[in-house]
């Protein structure tokens, strides 16, 4: 893809513009504009971090399932084998793979979210 600008830079420029006009909006639209800006921030993170996260998920799922494949195919098979009861929380490697997938996804979707098990903030 061309680099002047890169896709994530285009997205970032729109996000910054939304933030700029937010103070001029009525409360309801100001709220929605903040949501819209957050959505674009997620898009930008998905563009930059998504490929590595997907590659890690594919590797993790392939390890659990014992064969290679594409993301959608492995994900569907993983769901089916968990649903059937063949794979459980005790299956070696399954929770570790799912934990990596969850961490990578939250880093894209909601990086400020503090999941279960997170230590208290240093300066609460």
């Amino acid at each position, binding site marked *: 893809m061309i680099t002047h600008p890169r896709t994530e830079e285009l997205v970032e420029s729109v996000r910054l513009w939304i933030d700029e006009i937010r103070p001029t909006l009525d409360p309801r639209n100001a709220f929605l504009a903040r949501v819209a800006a957050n959505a674009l921030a997620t898009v930008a993170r998905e563009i930059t971090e998504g490929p590595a996260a997907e590659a890690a998920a594919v590797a993790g799922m392939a390890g659990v399932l014992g064969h290679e494949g594409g993301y959608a195919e492995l994900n569907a098979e993983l769901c089916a084998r968990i649903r059937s009861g063949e794979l459980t929380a005790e299956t070696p490697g*399954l929770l570790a793979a799912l934990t990596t997938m969850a961490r990578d996804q939250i880093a894209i979707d909601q990086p400020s979210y503090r999941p279960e098990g997170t230590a208290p903030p240093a300066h609460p």
Partner: protein
Amino acid sequence: MEVDVRAGLEKLAERLGGQGAKVTEAGRLSGGASMETWAFAIEAPTGLERLILRRRSAPFDEETARSVSLATEAALIQATAANGARVPTVRHVCDAADGLGEAYVMVRADGETLGKKIVSDPRFDAVRPQLARQCGESLVAIHRTVPPPGLKLKAVDGVAELDRYEEVYRATGAERPILELAFQYLRKHVPAPVEPTLLHGDFRNGNIMFDAEKGVVAVLDWELAHIGDPAEDMGWICTNSWRFGRPDRAVGGFGDYADLLAGYADAGGRAIELSRVRFWQMLGSLRWGVMCLTMYLSWRDGITKSVERPMIGRRVSETEADLVVLLEEGL
């Protein structure tokens, strides 16, 4: 038919305050697509009354709905109040003569309901260590209340709740391995049945009004009241989605399991094991995850247009990040 709420309140002022009573202020506070909350005050010969109107603004079928009617809500608030629960004071349940549709009026209470403030505002630093215990105490008065006869309350247990949300999840067509694993795990760990009690049904930080000195003022938002396992109300307030950035404090982001359970036991509640609370807590994360999926679907299917909805779909990963830790720890 569009209801003129302001005109309705003027009429209501005379009914509640006597002839010559006037509405001195009225403003809509919040509410979703189907529910409105209005703050208003009436000036009557007997004095000034600060009140809250809660009214439904969309058609409602109590048979099929998840929530109860507003009349049922009001009756439960009154019944639990008579039993010593900290709840709002119901002033009036509206009827056809009021022209406000399905609605009731409460006395306006003072306090904080924003979960984030309870968790992190220094104003609550002093009282915060007592709140989990007070929440346990508050639940005893609710769970002990025998619902007034004739109310249509649904009964739910762990299996029914898993069935319900798995059906919803399957219908979304989403394929999320962590949600799949949580369903399978919880099905294997459904706690033994207990004698069901009245439940608030949405007992979480955000639906409880707190005072910076006294703690719990009132338990609000009764629309999801039902009959079930008392640990369900405890598990929901422990679900990390309602800890507002303080996952280290299991109860609502302000307290510990031990204080919640001790407050419940010391107020005379039946003993509840922590693992039972954790079952409902994990089911709470799973349920919230599925609900986030359905909120995205309402946008995809063109039912709602707000940009908020698809973004809520990306909050499923919050519940997944919580669920993998809970699955690792066990109940």
